[in-house]
Structure formats: structure tokens, C-alpha cells
């Protein structure tokens, strides 16, 4: 009973915070509303017994939202929300599409005859997950690793303002490299 109440409060709170993200004017508050949505959505995951994944979601989402915050403030035109602004295009159509998608998915969730497996929950989901990604699903982790590496390389290539020739001179011979900000190791 208590669990059902907690689930209801967290579900409604999470969706409400999600809506708030697109309603507030201040970009800082929008990011924290998204963070609140994530944390409130992680509580039902904790209630289901997935303790490791629930805390992991909270941990990773806090860090990601703080990084996203820095970029929001850099690029958005109204970071503190001091003036009201409208930053949507195609508003009505998007609302219609989102509503239709929600109705279709909800109908699917209610109508589908879900399999009735005995709810014998695994006693140690964390251990099962660890054994799984080290055994049968190791390929998943390997591919994720390669994708993350490719992402790192691509991100640096796209966003770095100075290339090789800026750093090492026209014939790539200047050592140490010329950087505006020196690191701690004197490289």
C-alpha cells in the first residue's frame, strides 16, 4: 500500500517535472526540473528491487545534468529566465503527435495480454547483471566501449578550435606545443 502511494507520487511528480522543463523560462531551472524528473523516476526503479541500477541512474543523471547545465548556459539565449520568450516551432502539431503517441502506447499497455510469470524476483539482480555482462552479453559491453571511444574522438574533433598546425606550428616541429592554457605537467 505504501509502495503504491510512493509509486503514484513519484510517477506524477516525474511527469510533472518533465512538463516543467519546457514551461519555465530560466534555463537553470529547466535543467534542475529535468534532474528532479530523473530522480523521481529512479525511485520506482528502487522500489522494484533494482537497487544498483536505481542508484546508478541517480548518480549518472546528476553528473550529466550538471554538465548539460554548463552548455545550456553557454548557448541558450535566456539562461536566467529574466525575460519571457517563446522557443518552440510547430507547437500544436507536436502536442497532437505527443498526445496520440501517449494514447496509443497506453492502450497497448492496457490491452496486451502480458505473460503471467510467477513473480519470483531474483534475489540478487546486481550479481546477475554483473555475471551477465561478463559472460553471455560481453559483446554488448565491448561494443558500448568502442562506441564511447568513437564518441570521444568525434567530439574532440568537432569541438576543438585548435588543430595540429595551430599547436605545433606550420611544419609540426614546435615542441612543447603552443597552448593558451598550460596543464599541470608542463607538457
Amino acid at each position, binding site marked *: 500500500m505504501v*509502495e503504491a502511494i510512493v509509486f503514484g507520487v513519484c510517477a506524477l511528480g516525474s511527469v510533472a517535472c518533465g512538463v516543467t522543463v519546457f514551461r519555465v523560462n530560466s534555463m537553470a531551472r529547466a535543467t534542475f526540473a*529535468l534532474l528532479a524528473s*530523473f530522480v523521481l523516476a529512479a525511485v520506482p526503479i528502487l522500489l522494484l528491487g533494482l537497487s544498483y541500477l536505481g542508484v546508478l541512474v541517480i548518480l549518472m543523471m546528476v553528473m550529466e545534468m550538471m554538465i548539460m547545465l554548463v552548455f545550456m548556459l553557454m548557448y541558450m539565449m535566456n539562461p536566467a529566465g529574466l525575460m519571457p520568450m517563446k522557443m518552440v516551432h510547430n507547437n500544436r502539431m507536436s502536442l497532437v*503527435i505527443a498526445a496520440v503517441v501517449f494514447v496509443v502506447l497506453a492502450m497497448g499497455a492496457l490491452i496486451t495480454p502480458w505473460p503471467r510469470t510467477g513473480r519470483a524476483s531474483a534475489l540478487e539482480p546486481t550479481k546477475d547483471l554483473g555475471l551477465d555482462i561478463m559472460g553471455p552479453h560481453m559483446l554488448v559491453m565491448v561494443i558500448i566501449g568502442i562506441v564511447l571511444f568513437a564518441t570521444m574522438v568525434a567530439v574532440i574533433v*568537432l569541438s576543438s578550435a585548435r588543430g595540429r598546425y595551430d599547436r605545433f606550428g606550420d611544419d609540426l616541429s614546435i615542441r612543447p606545443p603552443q597552448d593558451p592554457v598550460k596543464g599541470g605537467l608542463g607538457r
Partner: protein
Amino acid sequence: MTLPLFLIFAAALFAVGLYGLLSQQSIVMIMMGLELTINGIIVAAAAVWYFISPGRPDAQTVILVAMAAMAVEMAMGFAVTTAIFRTRDVDMVDSASDLKG
């Protein structure tokens, strides 16, 4: 706390994220919508694990992959935004429609 309730919750998050994806003008706000969408997927995967297949950890692997996808999407989105902002000094998707049509 039944499976359909969890899935409706996930569908609501997905729909709100979809609204953000489709309607926002700024790349960063689109990414926030995408994050909400993937959040819905994470909740749905957790519910499927608990109610349908608690003996197998496959749904938990889906959650890990979804979190990795979130990180990748955020990183690439910010890199692209930085690159566009450097050349054009705007961050609206409306002004980045060179490949349209």
C-alpha cells in the same frame, strides 16, 4: 504497482519527451527532450524485468545500453552545437537546415 501502470508512466515520460523533441527550437532543448524519452525507456525496461523476466538480467542490460546511449547522445549533441555555434553564432535548428530537401 502493476505492469500496465508502470508502462503508462513510461509512456507518459516518452510522450512528454517526444513533445520536447519535436517542438523545441534549440538543439540543447531537443536533447533534453531526448533524455526524457530515454528515461521513459529505462523505467519501462525496469518494469519488464520485474514483472515478466525476473530470472534473466536481459532487461537490466537494456537499461545499461540506454544510459550509454544517453551519454553518447549528449556528448555528440554538444559537440555539434559547439561546431555550429562557432561558425554561425546561433544554436537554433531552424538555421541548421542545410541538408533539407
